[in-house]
């Protein structure tokens, strides 16, 4: 494509021999004409294709007018000419069979008599026309030559007499003859050429584009320019492209930054079960921890070290509860917590951020965090399921937050990405309580679709981190792919 454009239009108007010959021919008098380019080319010893090219080019600049003389005719094949002279194969075969009399003739003998090709085609047609039958090994005529007419020969003769004109025979016959490869349609393109309104005996070619040389020499003042075709699209701009999903990621990042959220460092794909599940108060027997849903890691299989005092507080919360909770009441297993995996959600990082927030110098301060990054699920891949996708997550940690704050924050976020109508439905999630599914109204599909999940982190998750008792954390999450697809 690029090459097409960069081959700059020919600057010098050099006339071709054909152009020159045509213009000269028309110069004798105003009504001079080339009656038929085909015969004219022959007489002038020029290539007809090149002449037609020159006519087209001259016509574009109105040097000449050209009217179409295109005609088509049927050309007879060598076989057809043979039929014209000697009769069709089936007539020849029938003649041979009649000659052989009632006893008929064997195939090899027939072949020897009329020739292999005539025998093959003629025999087949005789059988089809029921002019002959098989009697034992011999072929016997059932009609005499006098009973039949050679229609093929007659049709070909009609065509030949009419100079191949299409109207000489009916369409059905044309089809039949074509099928036997006896005739072939030939189209002859030629033109009658006369003077055009801009006729001149010598052509001056118009320029296609303004060039640097024209500016330098001032030639642009005298150069004639071709008319431009405004009805075609412009050239593609080229250049690079950013990935559409990552463009949406940038858009969402901006929105969350505007809303005062601080980005979390989520460049950590390998996670321990401890941060991915246990620190969130997700019981070790939860089905999400099955190999069906989570990619576990063979190497390095186990986490090497954890913050031990925090680990003890998490273990106690699972086993016996605390801070008003009765806990899950089961034996918490260390080997389960140390199992490495590919994080199933970025909440594995959120919990580390909250732990740090509780233990930072100067103690807890209200915070808003967000992240948009890759997560992994052990899914069978198809058109709608990937085992890797991007999760958008936002959370606010502050004193005495309520479900009303969560709903308000979520509405602000979704309004900014263009989803105005929201509904909230109770849901169950092991580490948030209350939990809500977020539904958005899709105006084109005219239906409510699930677009995210949300909730308030459970006190059993927050208390072991050391967050003050009346600090509550509201959070919501969605996949980056879903709204990108809807948009």
């Amino acid at each position, binding site marked *: 494509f690029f090459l097409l454009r960069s081959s700059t239009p020919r600057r010098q108007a050099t006339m071709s021999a054909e152009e020159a010959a045509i213009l000269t021919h028309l110069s004798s008098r105003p009504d001079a004409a080339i009656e038929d380019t085909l015969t004219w080319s022959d007489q002038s010893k020029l290539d007809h294709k090149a002449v037609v090219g020159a006519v087209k080019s001259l016509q574009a600049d109105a040097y000449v007018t050209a009217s179409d003389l295109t005609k088509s005719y049927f050309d007879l094949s060598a076989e057809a000419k043979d039929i014209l002279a000697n009769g069709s194969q089936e007539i020849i075969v029938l003649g041979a069979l009649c000659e052989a009399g009632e006893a008929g003739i064997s195939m090899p003998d027939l072949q020897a008599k009329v020739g292999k090709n005539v025998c093959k085609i003629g025999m087949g047609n005789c059988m089809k026309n029921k002019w002959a039958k098989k009697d034992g090994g011999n072929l016997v005529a059932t009609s005499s030559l006098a009973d039949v007419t050679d229609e093929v020969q007659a049709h070909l003769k009609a065509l030949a007499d009419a100079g191949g004109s299409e109207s000489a025979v009916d369409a059905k016959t044309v089809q039949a003859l074509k099928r036997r490869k006896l005739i072939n349609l030939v189209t002859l393109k030629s033109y009658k050429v006369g003077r055009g309104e801009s006729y001149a005996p010598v052509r001056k070619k118009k320029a296609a584009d303004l060039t640097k040389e024209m500016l330098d020499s001032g030639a642009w003042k005298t150069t004639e320019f071709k008319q431009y075709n405004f009805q075609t699209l412009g050239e593609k701009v080229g250049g690079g492209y*950013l990935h559409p999903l990552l463009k949406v990621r940038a858009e969402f990042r901006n929105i969350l930054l505007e809303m005062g959220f601080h980005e979390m460092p989520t460049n950590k794909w390998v996670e321990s079960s401890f941060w991915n599940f246990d620190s969130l108060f997700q019981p070790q027997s939860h089905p999400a921890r099955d190999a069906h849903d989570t990619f576990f890691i063979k190497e390095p299989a186990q986490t090497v070290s954890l913050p031990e005092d925090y680990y003890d507080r998490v273990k106690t919360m699972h086993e016996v509860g605390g801070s008003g909770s009765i806990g899950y009441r089961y034996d918490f297993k260390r080997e389960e917590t140390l199992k*490495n995996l590919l994080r199933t959600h970025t909440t594995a990082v959120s919990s580390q951020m909250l732990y740090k927030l509780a233990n930072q110098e100067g103690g807890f301060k209200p915070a808003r965090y967000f992240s948009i990054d890759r997560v992994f699920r052990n899914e069978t891949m198809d058109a709608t399921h990937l085992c890797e996708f991007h999760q958008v997550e936002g959370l606010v940690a502050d004193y005495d937050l309520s479900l009303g704050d969560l709903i308000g924050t979520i509405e602000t976020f979704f309004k900014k990405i263009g989803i105005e109508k929201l509904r909230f439905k*109770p849901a169950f999630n092991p580490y948030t*309580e209350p939990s809500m599914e977020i539904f958005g109204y899709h105006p084109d599909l005219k239906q409510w679709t699930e677009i995210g999940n949300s909730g308030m982190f459970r006190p*059993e998750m927050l208390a072991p981190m050391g967050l003050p008792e009346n600090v509550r954390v509201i959070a919501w999450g969605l996949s980056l792919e879903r709204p990108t697809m809807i948009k």
Partner: protein
Amino acid sequence: GLSRSLKIFLGDMDAPVYQLTAPDKMETMTVQQDATSTVRPFVVCAILRDVAFTPERYASFIDLQDQLHRNLCRQRTLVAIGTHDMDAVRGPFHYDARCPDDIEFVPLKSSDDTAGQAFTGRTLLEHYETHPDCKHLKPYVPIIKDSSLYPVVLDNENVVLSLPPIINGDRSKITLDTKNVFIECTATDLTKANIVLDTVVTMFSEYCSQPFHIEPVRVNYVDAAGTTTKSDVTPALSTRRVQAGVDFINSLIGIQETAERMVELCNKIQLGPATLEVGPDGRQQMLEVCVPPTRSDILHPVDIAEDVGIAYGYNNIVKRVPHTNTVGGEQPLNKLGDLLRDEIGRAGYTEVLTHGLCSVRDNFTALRKQITAAVSLSNPANVEYEVVRTTLLPGLLKTLQHNKSASFTAGFKLFEISDVVLPDDRHAITGTVVGARNERRLCAVYAGPTSGFEVIHGLVDRVLTLTEVAPEEEYGSNSTKGDEEKFRVAREGWCYTIRELTAGDADAGTYFPGRAAEILLTSPSTGGERVRIGTFGILHPEVLSAFDVGYPASCLEINLEPLM
């Protein structure tokens, strides 16, 4: 269950009160503690009397057990439910664990050819593992297969009633004519066993002649000497009274309901009878509710608050936004990545987003590299996902492969900025060492009629210019510098150079011999030393053919983190 909840919510029905009956003689289950503790230590039991089964209720009874086995019981590993026709068997019952060869047992029919046939514990499991009709039981075989003792539930004549967690016996099977149902739940987790048994009996006691009445069973644990060490009456049917502050609920949900209204709501959602109490400080109003055995999910007052919120209606809550102002901020590494993405896109490269997981072949052998350590998955979904990539290059080459039909005549340029994961047993985040770390990389390829080495080389210089790193004096001196060089912004103490990659280098195999270079960075954090941050060059023809790329190509891969 659903229609019952609706009726109660609408006030058409009172919440059920579950009661344990007091039989003349309580049925017992004796647990041989020393034997069962080796494989499946716990059992809880209950009896439902005069159940009226219909085909629908029977199907629903089986379905409930299947659902519980799948979810709460975690595919029977934690809890397995066995149900028996009480009239076909006699107590007292025993729960023991025995040598697989000593167990003789006629199980429920699982395939036509073995109906009514007796098996030993060992032959039965082998049968389930191999017989085509037993695919539905095969997944449970490994739970006990390798134990030296298999758990068994026995009746008073020492006849095996069930082989948990696999199958029940044929003799005591439940039919539509069954009146009295004996339920045993064997378990490795006693809390879960109680929850499961409570769920089964609360759901089905509705169909007893005396609805919501359940006959208890005494479970005695005896040690090797025959001494009873523990005696429980099951089902636990644990009903607790739990308090939650009225102010706490209002504050958590963001509503202003009166205490009296909350009592009303709690009665509607089966947390009744609810009462109002005075808190420990003598002033606070406390809502006290009754948590029935069906609500094992209630662990904390927040769970009560949620139920009040749901009864109030989430969509009726008044919206607010958190009042504290906070300042937003980006991760510096992500910010650098986004700035570079824009610039490289402007330089005519098309951004791609490829998978983080790939095959060992694509990550190593196809790149003519030795197979070295990488984070590998223990349960990959398919062969394409064996390891977490240690290089971005395979993803870009696969993209070229999938765009064979595109025009390469003007050069096809791709790039990606994303993470690779490298094994690292020292890298710590939040006091945790998992044994691996992410590294943010930039990778770009050019493919076209010629290799485009100089195109990729130009991108190397551009990226370092953009990150404000100047070329070393010698490196840049051979090139004719444009005026822009005079205005270049460079960080003090930062510079870079490139050097031909030696043949023996670990990365050299990927490149065409003599057409590969390493990028060396000197910065304050390298202590004046040159440190390699990446490589670039013409790709080796064998690498191209391994990815089915028909055009010569060049690539670069740079670690962005040292440029921060």
